[in-house]
């Protein structure tokens, strides 16, 4: 029914429609109302991720192991959650540096290294070739199948088909022609392909629609909904294990996890994903919608995969039909002509979308990062002097597109037969995953160097070649199988599929583990061992700190150039119209006059031209062109060293300043403390004077009162008179004592006391003091008891002073004892190197608060002297403590309210060898 020419005609009509959409979108863009300035179009264009692999291969994979197709879409969902952090940074960097491709990004990051750009391009091309062959296989298979409609006949083995009769060759050539017409109409690679993006977004809709249509038809047309499909599968003994597939059917959990990781990298580093996500991004903010719309798209296109897979298995149980073709063969088997055509168109959409974007991205890389740097360096070509290079650039890109598609075809002929669609695609995923360390490391770690990136990429790529590509070629019979089974030269440890004896994993997991270990290890190690050049260091800062500041990169460039020379260079690569516009805009924004043959371009101007040029031919080629066209005095290492030396000197100065300021702060704090102490002392002095004068006034007042009475009345009785004179004498004594004590205090505090040092027997001191006080004790009826051992070691002290201390303690004790019932106990003892004297009374005792302050100046138990209740000056204990402490001893009190007080003093025993004598 379906004639070959009908299918071909419909295919071309569909491609024509795409072309029309692209043409319309370009026209709209030229008019300033671009279609692609929309987050929804952006999100749909990201769905170029879903290729023929998704469209045909997912069902094939699901028919083999149930859930094995899902990590490919769950991984990207997880990665996209990180895009707000990672992709936003890449977008910002790429816009600032006018990045044209993945290779350009890596080369630019590591010091605009042409070598690195070339390596990335080579890896990308070799790695992507299997992926392109997958698309060719899918399209040509679906075409061949559809030709047989309504019979379901699997395509013949390829080896039997001559090259020229192979449909995939014609598919490849047709796609090449279409891509060339589509993607290389503009030269300026950094500019957006409005038409292409619009067409891709449209294709994403078509493939989703076609897939959902066939899914709904199978689920609800052939069967009675999801439940029915699964119930029938569960009833089938061979299919039942696939309902709990992670128990080994899908290669277990390690396979699941590694596939997830692999596709996390793929969504970022497949050249076509980088192209649509980064290069074609018009507004950073579009990312916001894409973060959830694109995962939603992936969810939607996967919902019907399982019913299709189980439906296919139930329909074609004998295994005559390749599961990769279920999507198409199911409607064919049920005689649904229109649906089969729709599926074919959907598959064509998925494949062409991928091929167009991928080859455009790869051709840009091949041209800018592989061919141009080489051509520009070949002086014999005198390329740098040619007037117009735009034609050459376009020629290279077109050639690259044809070459890449033919490589895909060759791979298909060599190895495509032996593998299912998904397995072919995974080989490519593993290849682009090798870019992850260099790129992710490059945007977050300044320490990554060019050498590190090169070592990491080459190591990872080498392992990939050995463990994935080589086995794929061997399986297809192009290399001896003995290598796979026994290892090279019979060394079992080096078997490509069980490297170092690691077995039990599927091929992709095995290859990923070894290549990632090698890649990351080499990247980090070589980065740490090598030191970056000035240019690398600059680019590293520019990339890693892209959010931190608007970097003035021009600052690092020194030299002079004529604006006219720069203009000529730019014209050669982008054509006179674009160059004139660029120069005009720049001159206007800076207030310069252009055209002007004598205008000298400053560093910023040169930088501007270089980024413009980079937009057309990539960063490394632009660098070469600028270097050849202007007299550049690039920053030499010496200059860099000088700048660094200056910087480190500044750092040193700032450290010194910090130190000085902290010293100043410390000094200020000291001064403040001293000032506080002085203020406090001043206050204490005032207090002291007022207290002393108060103390002096009390006896003076009574002396004056009684002497005035005596003077005024000469007729006072003798007894009365005598009594008054007694009082006057006593008060005078008190006054004298007070003044003596104040003088003592002053002397002690100023350190002017003259101490008469001698050997002192504390027993004698005690008995002398008690004797001196005996009169007082008798008067108050106080009982005194002295306990002392026979012999007490001598202490070194001033004997008069010690008597003064003891008299003070005894008079205090007497003062607080109740008259008639008082009891004072004095105990002399020694222990260790101290002689101790305790004076215990049975007075009212002291509270804890009183104990704390009783040794202060003018403080007395039972209130202070200002209230004037108990007798005494309030200086005695203060002076006593000073005296005792002067001789290295201690004076303290132990007491409880109501249980008397015990004042104790202890003094160190005099050392024997010091002997007797005075100072």
């Amino acid at each position: 029914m379906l004639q070959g020419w009908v299918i071909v005609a419909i295919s071309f009509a569909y491609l024509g429609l795409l072309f029309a959409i692209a043409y319309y979108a370009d026209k709209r863009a030229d008019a300033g109302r671009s279609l692609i300035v929309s987050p929804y179009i952006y999100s749909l264009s990201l769905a170029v991720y879903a290729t023929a692999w998704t469209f045909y291969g997912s069902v094939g994979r699901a028919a083999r192991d149930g859930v094995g197709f899902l990590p490919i879409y769950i991984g990207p969902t997880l990665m996209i959650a990180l895009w707000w952090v990672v992709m936003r940074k890449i977008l910002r960097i790429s816009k600032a540096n006018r990045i044209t491709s993945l290779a350009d990004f890596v080369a630019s990051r590591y010091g605009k290294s042409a070598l690195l750009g070339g390596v990335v391009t080579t890896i990308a091309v070799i790695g992507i070739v299997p992926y392109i062959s997958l698309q060719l296989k899918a399209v040509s298979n679906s075409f061949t199948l559809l030709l047989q409609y309504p019979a379901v006949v699997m395509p013949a083995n390829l080896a039997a088909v001559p090259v020229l009769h192979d449909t995939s060759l014609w598919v490849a050539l047709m796609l090449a022609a279409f891509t060339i017409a589509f993607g290389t109409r503009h030269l300026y690679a950094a500019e957006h392909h409005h038409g292409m993006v619009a067409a891709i977004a449209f294709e994403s809709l078509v493939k989703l629609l076609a897939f959902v249509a066939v899914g709904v038809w199978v689920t609800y047309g052939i069967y009675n909904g999801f439940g029915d499909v699964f119930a029938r599968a569960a009833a089938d003994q061979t299919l039942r294990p696939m309902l709990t597939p992670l128990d080994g059917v899908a290669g277990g959990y390690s396979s699941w996890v590694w596939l997830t990781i692999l596709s996390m990298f793929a969504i970022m580093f497949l050249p076509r994903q980088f192209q649509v996500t980064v290069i074609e991004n018009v507004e950073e903010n579009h990312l916001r919608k894409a973060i959830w719309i694109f995962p939603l798209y992936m969810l939607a296109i996967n919902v019907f995969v399982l019913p299709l897979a189980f439906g296919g298995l139930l329909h074609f149980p004998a295994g005559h039909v390749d599961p990769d073709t279920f999507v198409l063969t199911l409607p064919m088997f049920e005689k649904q002509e229109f649906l089969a055509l729709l599926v074919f168109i959907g598959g064509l959409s998925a494949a062409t979308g991928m091929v167009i974007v991928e080859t455009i991205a790869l051709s840009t890389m091949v041209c800018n990062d592989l061919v141009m740097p080489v051509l520009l360096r070949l002086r014999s070509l005198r390329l740098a002097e040619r007037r117009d290079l735009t034609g050459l650039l376009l020629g290279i890109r077109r050639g690259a597109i044809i070459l890449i598609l033919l490589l895909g075809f060759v791979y298909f002929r060599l190895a495509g037969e032996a593998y299912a669609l998904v397995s072919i695609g995974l080989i490519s995923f593993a290849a682009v995953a090798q870019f992850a360390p260099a790129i992710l490391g490059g945007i977050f770690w300044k320490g990554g160097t060019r050498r590190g990136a090169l070592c990491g990429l080459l190591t990872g790529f080498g392992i990939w070649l050995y463990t994935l590509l080589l086995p794929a070629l061997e399986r297809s019979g192009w290399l001896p199988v003995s290598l796979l089974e026994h290892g090279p030269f019979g060394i079992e440890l080096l078997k490509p599929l069980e490297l170092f004896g690691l077995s039990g994993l599927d091929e992709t997991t095995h290859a990923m583990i070894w290549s990632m270990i090698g890649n990351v290890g080499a990247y980090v190690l070589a980065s740490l061992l090598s030191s970056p050049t000035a240019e690398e260091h600059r680019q590293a800062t520019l990339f890693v700190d892209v959010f931190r500041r608007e970097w003035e990169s021009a600052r690092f460039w020194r030299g002079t150039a004529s604006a006219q020379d720069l203009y000529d260079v730019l014209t050669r690569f982008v054509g006179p119209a674009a160059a004139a516009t660029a120069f005009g805009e720049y001159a206007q924004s800076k207030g310069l006059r252009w055209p002007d043959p004598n205008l000298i371009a400053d560093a910023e101007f040169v930088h501007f031209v270089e980024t413009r040029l980079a937009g057309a031919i990539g960063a490394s080629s632009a660098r070469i062109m600028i270097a050849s066209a202007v007299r550049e005095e690039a920053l030499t290492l010496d200059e860099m060293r000088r700048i660094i030396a200056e910087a480190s000197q500044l750092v040193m100065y700032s450290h010194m300043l910090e130190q000085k300021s902290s010293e100043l702060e410390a000094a200020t704090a000291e001064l403040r403390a001293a000032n506080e102490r002085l203020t406090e002392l001043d206050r204490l002095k005032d207090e002291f004077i007022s207290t002393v004068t108060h103390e002096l006034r009390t006896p003076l007042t009574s002396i004056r009162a009684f002497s005035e009475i005596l003077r005024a009345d000469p007729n006072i009785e003798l007894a009365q008179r005598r009594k008054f004179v007694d009082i006057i004498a006593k008060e005078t004594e008190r006054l004298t004592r007070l003044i003596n004590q104040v003088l003592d205090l002053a002397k002690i505090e100023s350190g002017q006391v003259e101490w008469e040092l001698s050997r002192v027997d504390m027993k004698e001191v005690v008995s002398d003091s008690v004797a001196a006080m005996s009169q007082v004790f008798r008067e108050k009826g106080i009982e005194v008891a002295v306990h002392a051992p026979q012999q007490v070691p001598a202490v070194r002290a001033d004997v008069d002073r010690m008597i003064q201390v003891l008299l003070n303690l005894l008079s205090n004790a007497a003062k607080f004892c109740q008259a008639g019932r008082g009891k004072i106990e004095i105990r002399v003892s020694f222990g260790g190197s101290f002689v101790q004297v305790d004076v215990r009374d049975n007075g009212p005792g002291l509270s804890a608060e009183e104990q704390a302050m009783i040794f202060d100046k003018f403080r007395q138990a039972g209130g202070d002297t200002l209230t004037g209740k108990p007798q005494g000056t309030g200086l005695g204990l203060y002076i006593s403590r000073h005296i005792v402490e002067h001789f290295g001893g201690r004076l303290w009190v132990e007491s409880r309210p109501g249980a008397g007080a015990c004042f104790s003093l202890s003094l160190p025993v005099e050392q024997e060898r010091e002997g007797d004598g005075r100072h």
Partner: protein
Amino acid sequence: MDQLDRRAQRLVALCMLGCVLFNFPVLAVFNVDGFVLGIPVLYAYIFAAWALLIALMALAVEEGG
């Protein structure tokens, strides 16, 4: 970036949540015989968790304009 904004923090947390939901111990819990609304438990779980994750991502990224 010195500090991640709130939106970025939430999205990173969601990525971690996804890594837990679609990984060994949790997946093994659902890798059992049985049906939920006629759909095998494991498949029902994966698609439900996936849809939930996408919904949360949409909330996190769109919130606050």
